[in-house]
């Protein structure tokens, strides 16, 4: 069971955390909403709960609750640029299909 960050993603997340001035890392979760069933949640983590799983890459902690982890296992988080738009991208091997925009998905 693992979630990974690319070096580029880790670098950007570190930058965002530094600017924000607080937070232990990044929290990833899956919420059951959205037009295709599931939706990603990506937030700053201010604390780690007792049963959270924590993955670390280049000093960046990625915090995931056990319920979400089953949908996210094996995911690689990347930072990319598409035209003027830039941001974090989920490469999730569990996804069977997703809505046109990719904001929600199904497994």
């Amino acid at each position, binding site marked *: 069971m693992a979630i990974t960050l690319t070096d580029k993603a880790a670098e*950007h*997340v570190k930058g*965002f955390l530094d*600017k*924000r001035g607080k937070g232990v890392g*990044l*929290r990833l*979760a899956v*919420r059951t*909403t*959205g*037009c295709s069933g599931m*939706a*990603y*949640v*990506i*937030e*700053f*983590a*201010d604390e780690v709960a007792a049963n959270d799983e924590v993955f670390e890459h280049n000093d960046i902690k990625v915090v995931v609750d056990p319920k979400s982890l089953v949908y996210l296992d094996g995911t690689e988080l990347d930072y*990319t640029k*598409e*035209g*003027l*738009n*830039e*941001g*974090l*991208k*989920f490469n999730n091997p569990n996804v069977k299909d*997703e*809505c046109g*925009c*990719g*904001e*929600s998905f199904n497994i």
Partner: protein
Amino acid sequence: MALFQIAEPGQAQAPHQRRLAVGIDLGTTNSLVASVMSGSAKVLVNEQDEASIPSVVHYQEDGTVLVGSAAQAKAVADPYNTIASAKRLMGKGADDLSDTLFADRYLFDTDSGSLPAFKTQAGNKTAVDVSSAILQSLKNTAELSLGGELVGAVITVPAYFDDAQRQATKDAATVAGLHVLRLLNEPTAAALAYGLDAKEDACVAIFDLGGGTFDISLLKMQRGLFEVMATAGDTALGGDDFDHALAATLAEQAGITDLSDASQQRNLLNIARGIKEQLSDQTSCGFDIPLADGGSYKGTIDRDQFNALIEPLFKRSLKSCRQALRDANIEKSDVDAVVMVGGSTRVPLVRDRVSEFFGRTVLTDINPDEVVAVGAALQADVLAGNKPDSELLLLDVIPLSLGLETMGGLAEKVIPRNTTIPIARAQEFTTYKDGQTALALHVVQGERELVSDCRSLARFELRDIPPRVAGAVRIQVIFQVDADGLLTVSAIEKESGVVASVDVKPSYGLSDSEIEQMLTASMEHASDDMLARALQEQKVEADRVVEAINSALASDGDEHLDSDERTVIDQAIGDLQTARAGDSTDAIKSAIAKVEKVSNAYVERRMNATVRKMMAGKQLADVESDTSDT
């Protein structure tokens, strides 16, 4: 595959419900758009990789509109169809053209209404149209960068913008299809960008010298709230003026006397701007001006020469600083931090002199060109609901007093300047004549005592007032200013409940002078105004006395007065009317006193007659019981 931004804990949005909001600094010279992404505000770059775009719009014959650098590139070759610095005309009427540098730089169509329109090959364009084209371009940049539609924008305006100028800015946003979350004062945005709310009880001065406008704002941080204590400024002072001063000197040095050629003039301005920017890092700078005969003029200018040129312009900003300090009732030494905003604060003379003035080193850490947009983006993020709790509540102030015209053409201030908004204030007025059934209300803005020296905002009438003797009617007038500084005035007659109101969609064409001129004038004319007010008040009082005595004489003058007594009173009234026509307050005052004196006996007789009439045919007991009731 969608790209994600990191949200605050618990604030992640459901898919397709991300609330994208931006902050826009719509500047006179340059405009920027910024947004909060993954917790930090950053300026968004367009497809040409530019963070800020020139606030320039070029209209082509086929109706194509170019914005930014592409438009600026056309400025020299096609000056009349390339509009720059349009912000200076926002909310201005055709009458204001002569006050600006525009009249000789562009072709105007002033016949098409009260709004001045630039004549371009694509038709007439107003300042609102030009601003809207700029906003449209920024909106496109933002939507491409953020990957979705915007829910809204916070647009910054100079603290000094009046209602008409704010409304014009909102109109431009509406035309561009942007929802305005809020208009935010530029200096307030700058304070947000620096995160100065963290410093408890600190007093911060924001010194904003942009391309076309100057603002000084004094802000106080209390328990995380920004309170604007005072603002002052100059809506026609900025880097553009430095460029013009320098361009004039360059023209003189190069022996260019014919300044009617718009391309040549624009070219000189571009060279001047380049020199100004270089002199921020270097102590002297060489230049090369192409001449009409195909040759060119080469010369150099050093920083001292440049400083000498801009010194008189710069001094105007310190005058505003002093006024803001006076308004806020604080000393220079009470100011804990001075934030520099606007590209023109890169000029070394400006930094040095402002540091000297406040006796402390000024803050220049954040790019002075981006700081306002960054602050607006942070505010937009809060307003769009992307923050756990909106700990930011911004209090702004109204820049000029709002009031009503009263008898004698005097301005009665209902809301004094620098009152924090939103605000509602009520004041009672009454009628002037017996049986008066309508009241004309004239809403004015300004600091002067006479209406003729203030700015007229709106006129409306309250009708169907029940006829009563003068002074018996109670009319409550309510002034309401919303969070964006827009005004609603309503009047209600208390007895009958008749109501009239006006939304002061401030009329564009009514401005008769620049705001800061109004303020300066109010300081310079303080004592004249006091005397003028005293004179007007005596005139109103004289009219009231004449009106009262004449109506009394008409009803029972012959009954109580013999012809000699009557002649004396008529003589005194005649003298009072002569004095009233003159300009001496004291003469009117003494003439009023004389009328009162000579009519004393008559007034007494009338009073006695009235009492006798009331008593006639009554028993003592009735009178006693009547009086004991009261």
